[in-house]
């Protein structure tokens, strides 16, 4: 009994608390058919490699929440029939034009669309972050966005005088799926300025991340790095995925692959072209 664990041993047992996933496929296993999945906007670290892996696995009936907008990621998932419900403020390929699979699915009625506006999605995620059933938000009154959202309520503010205000029900995703510059072996994730990734992780039941690299040591040990770190107790699994946002960019690390995005926009414009795109870039694992 007198034998006690040494300080050196302690460091080792702590390190075993979190296990990096062996592959992206392993990491995304908790994303089951029919779950509510939240993903970030196109400039916040979009897990494109993980998205391709999800498509290869044949994920179905997702309730996809894009916070607050999406580009190619939502378009791909919609085009492959993985999405049942889409909740976001906009889907667009930006300077490469409209998101063709998104627009086609809306026109054909293939997906259920819950049109929102950016701050409403942020606020609804923050409601789950704070453990409250709803969040108030200004604006919205008189907009058809509100008109078609019968899950949003208007009340008379008890602090005002005939002052109507919208209450948004909390969005509590089953899984947040994100891509970040780095993680450490303790499950801590460096997200930098992309603090909506923290809100997503706080709001979601589970958070799955892919990362560019594994940081040696503990991200929380350095006060400068710690300021941009999401602590490990929010994280379900992490997999290494170098250039995991490709063909999108990862701010401060690499820029988007414009040629590829232009090619996607061109190919995805038709059903056949989209099928060719999937064959070449998703199922072939060329970029995975």
């Amino acid at each position: 009994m007198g034998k006690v664990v040494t300080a050196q041993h302690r460091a080792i047992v702590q390190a075993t608390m979190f296990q990096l996933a062996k592959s992206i496929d392993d990491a995304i296993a908790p994303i089951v058919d029919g779950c509510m999945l939240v993903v970030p906007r196109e400039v916040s670290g979009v897990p494109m490699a993980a998205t391709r892996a999800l498509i290869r696995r044949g994920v179905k009936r997702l309730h996809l929440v894009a916070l607050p907008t999406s580009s190619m990621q939502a378009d791909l998932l919609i085009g492959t029939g993985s999405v049942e419900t889409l909740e976001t403020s906009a889907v667009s390929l930006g300077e490469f034009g409209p998101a063709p699979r998104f627009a086609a699915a809306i026109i054909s009625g293939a997906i259920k669309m819950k049109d929102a506006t950016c701050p409403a999605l942020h606020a609804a995620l923050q409601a789950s972050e704070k453990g409250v059933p709803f969040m108030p938000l200004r604006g919205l009154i008189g907009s058809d966005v509100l008109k078609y959202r019968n899950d949003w309520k208007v009340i008379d503010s008890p602090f005002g005088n005939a002052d109507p205000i919208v209450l948004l029900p909390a969005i509590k995703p089953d899984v947040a799926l994100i891509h970040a510059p780095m993680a450490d072996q303790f499950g801590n994730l460096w997200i930098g300025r992309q603090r909506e990734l923290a809100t997503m992780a706080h709001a979601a039941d589970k958070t799955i991340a892919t990362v560019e690299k594994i940081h040696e040591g503990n991200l929380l040990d350095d006060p400068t790095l710690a300021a941009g770190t999401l602590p490990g107790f929010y994280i379900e699994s992490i997999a290494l995925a170098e250039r995991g946002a490709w063909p999108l960019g990862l701010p401060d690390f690499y820029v988007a692959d414009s040629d590829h995005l232009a090619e996607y926009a061109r190919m995805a414009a038709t059903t056949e072209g989209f099928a060719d795109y999937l064959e070449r870039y998703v199922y072939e694992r060329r970029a995975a």
Partner: protein
Amino acid sequence: MNAAPRERNFRDEELLADVIERLIGDVRHVAVGNASPIPATAALLVRERGKGRPYVSLLQSRKHNFFTDGARELFDCAGQGRIDVFFLSGGQIDGQGNVNLVSTGDYAHPKVRFPGSFGSAYLYYVVPKVILFRTEHSRRTLVSRVDFISAPGTSQANVYRSGGPIALVTNRCLFSFANGRFVLTSVHPGHTIDEVVENTGFDFEKPATVPQTPAPSSETLALMREIVAPQLAEVYPQFAMQVFGIGPAAFAR
């Protein structure tokens, strides 16, 4: 400002940026959304003249973006009254200042689907100066009544609203917006009042005399081309190349 030379020594985009620059005025913080290279040009121009004032946040930029609290900060900041100017476009804009970024036809069975409302259903209410711009001035885009109100031009008196539209800039003219209606304020060089009427799907007020939009001064053009354009290349590389002939090399500047 010097009188503009009579010969046309500027591009449409430069004229529109100049118009928008004057609309921005003396403010503290201008935010520019993702697909707005002309407003971005105007905002950076104001900042050049203001010796660093106002703050200009180009939302897709790293260099010209001061936000560090994630994607929600722009909206929180606007809710705090700290964003003075923002820009909105629309698949449709109507005579009441309503904008449609969602779809045409019946919402449940749309004919054309646009990307979506983005932050318009909030920012339109809380940013004091929202400048509408649409470079396609036609009866298709400027309509009598939008099919979907992403954000309304005006609100009932008891609805909290500290902001809204102040103007609409198109490739043909400048409208100002007041009391729930557009007023034709100036017609751009090379365009006519009749042409504006013919291509506008909504009614608007037409003063007895409508001046021509002044051309950008040579000083403005020089600032825009030599100082502002290189800064645009990071966020709007295609625009910077097409309008100003600025390639990626200038980015490093």
